[in-house]
């Protein structure tokens, strides 16, 4: 079921931008998206802004200097899926007929937090006892390896593949190629995850203009249709939970496939939430790109890399494009649309017709993740 179209996209380069304000970063992405869509500022009916650490009224702070206030502006916080959750609100608002053109922005400036792991909520019981995001993923990785026979070298292969794609993306934070040995020799963060298996922190913004089909035609843009926009939250469990798989991603993607009337075999390319290399392996399985326990074989055979049968994260993913938390979900959409329009340059997936984006959010006790958003886009 077509919800809406996306008439224009834009993003900043991701990376450390300590000398710019978060407002400047956000404005750059928004102006690029509006220019791409050919829409003037008075053609925007509403705005949604996703950010996790951007502070109060982040959307208003960005739109203010563009003279775009007065319209409804809604700020959305959903950890790493803040931007993806903001997009969902816009798609459904257009579907409901409430607006014809909505600016969706994802923006984050993590350099202002200093370095290290992301600050987590101090009331959380696990955070008090020393849990950090890399460890959340590392513990799942260890269990996954235990159950499937995957090894740290498979995790390193994911990082190598991400860098191969990142090297082809001028907006990526990391554009260098690396080897399996480089990854294995990089310093330990939370074992078995070494530094190069972890996404970096950085700054950046991405924006898209969501419109009705009618408005897209009027704008004369090359519209891409949103066929599914699904958001779910993790189930709270005090008891046992299979950490070698992702129930949340399985559930969310199943709903998205059903809504779009497609299956995993129809996906030309996917942008998935590879905050850590091990997660990408688990998500190959959860998204149905391979069978249970076959993630390691999939990366070994190069199926998710350039020229493979199921390209995953052609942007370089969170690992290399970068992960300014709230911006990521929108940046995934920007990449998907460049791919579907055939504008992705050196990293273009041939004959891309259907793109899937997958964005999870949050380390929170007792839940798989706080949130998971899956979008399906078609050209």
């Amino acid at each position, binding site marked *: 079921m077509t919800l809406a179209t996306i008439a224009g996209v834009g993003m900043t380069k991701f990376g450390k931008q300590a000398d710019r304000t978060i407002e400047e970063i956000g404005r750059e992405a928004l102006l690029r998206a509006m220019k791409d869509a050919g829409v003037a500022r008075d053609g925007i009916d509403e705005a949604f802004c996703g950010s996790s650490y951007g502070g109060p009224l982040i959307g208003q702070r960005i739109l203010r200097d563009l003279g775009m206030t007065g319209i409804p502006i809604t700020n959305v916080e959903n950890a790493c899926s803040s931007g993806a959750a903001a997009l969902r609100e816009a798609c459904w608002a257009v579907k409901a007929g409430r607006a014809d053109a909505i600016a969706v922005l994802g923006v984050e400036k993590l350099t202002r937090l200093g370095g*290290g*792991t992301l*600050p987590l909520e101090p009331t959380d*019981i*696990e955070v*008090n*006892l*020393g*849990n*950090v995001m*890399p*460890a959340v993923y*590392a*513990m*799942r990785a*260890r*269990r996954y390896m*235990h159950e499937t026979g995957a090894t740290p070298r498979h995790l390193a292969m994911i990082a190598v593949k991400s860098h191969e794609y990142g090297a082809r993306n001028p907006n990526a934070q990391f554009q260098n190629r690396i080897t399996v040995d480089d990854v294995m020799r990089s*310093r*330990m*963060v*939370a*074992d*078995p*995850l070494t530094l190069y298996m972890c996404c970096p922190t950085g700054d950046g913004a991405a924006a898209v203009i969501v419109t009705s089909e009618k408005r897209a035609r009027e704008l004369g843009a090359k519209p891409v249709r949103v066929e599914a926009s699904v958001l779910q939250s993790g189930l*709270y*469990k*005090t*008891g*046992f*939970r299979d*950490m070698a798989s992702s129930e949340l991603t399985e559930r969310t993607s199943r709903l998205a496939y059903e809504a779009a009337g497609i299956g995993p075999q129809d996906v030309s390319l996917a942008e998935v939430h590879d905050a850590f290399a091990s997660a990408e392996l688990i998500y190959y399985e959860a998204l149905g790109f391979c069978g249970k326990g076959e993630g390691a074989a999939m990366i070994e055979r190069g199926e998710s890399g350039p020229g493979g049968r199921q390209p995953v994260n052609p942007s370089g993913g969170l690992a290399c494009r970068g992960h300014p938390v709230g911006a990521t979900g929108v940046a995934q959409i920007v990449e998907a649309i460049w791919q579907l329009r055939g504008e992705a340059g050196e990293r273009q997936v041939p004959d891309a017709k259907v793109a899937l984006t997958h964005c999870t959010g949050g380390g929170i*006790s*007792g839940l798989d993740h706080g949130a998971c958003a899956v979008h399906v886009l078609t050209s």
Partner: protein
Amino acid sequence: MSSAPRPVLSFVNFNRLRSSGATIILIAKSQVAVNDDTEYFPASRPWTEEADSVRLHGSKCALCGSVAFPPHPSCPACGAESGQDAVQLSPVGTLYTFSEIHIAPKGFATPYVVGYVDLPEGVRLFGQIEGRAGDLRLEQPVAVTLGPVRSDTSGRMVVSYKFRGLP
């Protein structure tokens, strides 16, 4: 030749001494000094120290029987708003997974090991595990214990439940 028994200060005795107002510097296997400034997490101290073990306090739903830790006022499994009975949890569980952390927020001394421990009551607990990752394996039995987990912003030591590997 047998060595003389070494004096052991259990946390039970430690707490008695502590409540007597004494300042105690305890150099245990964790090599961290414990004194009057010690803080506890959770502050409610949901545990009982027995002679040879530590038992955590959970809650069990009278309606659906599911067990939760820490004790919940309502049942997260079935939604029952009352009837959450206090239960003591088993002092030994099984290590489901773990990781040794090398980069951590302020207050945590790296490296340290964290993991998930499954108790027979059907509860999975997150906590720190004594020792290094190389000494541990999945499915290993681990015992609940108490010990320092971090220091707070003013430098005071925070003691909580944690785990130690059993043979």
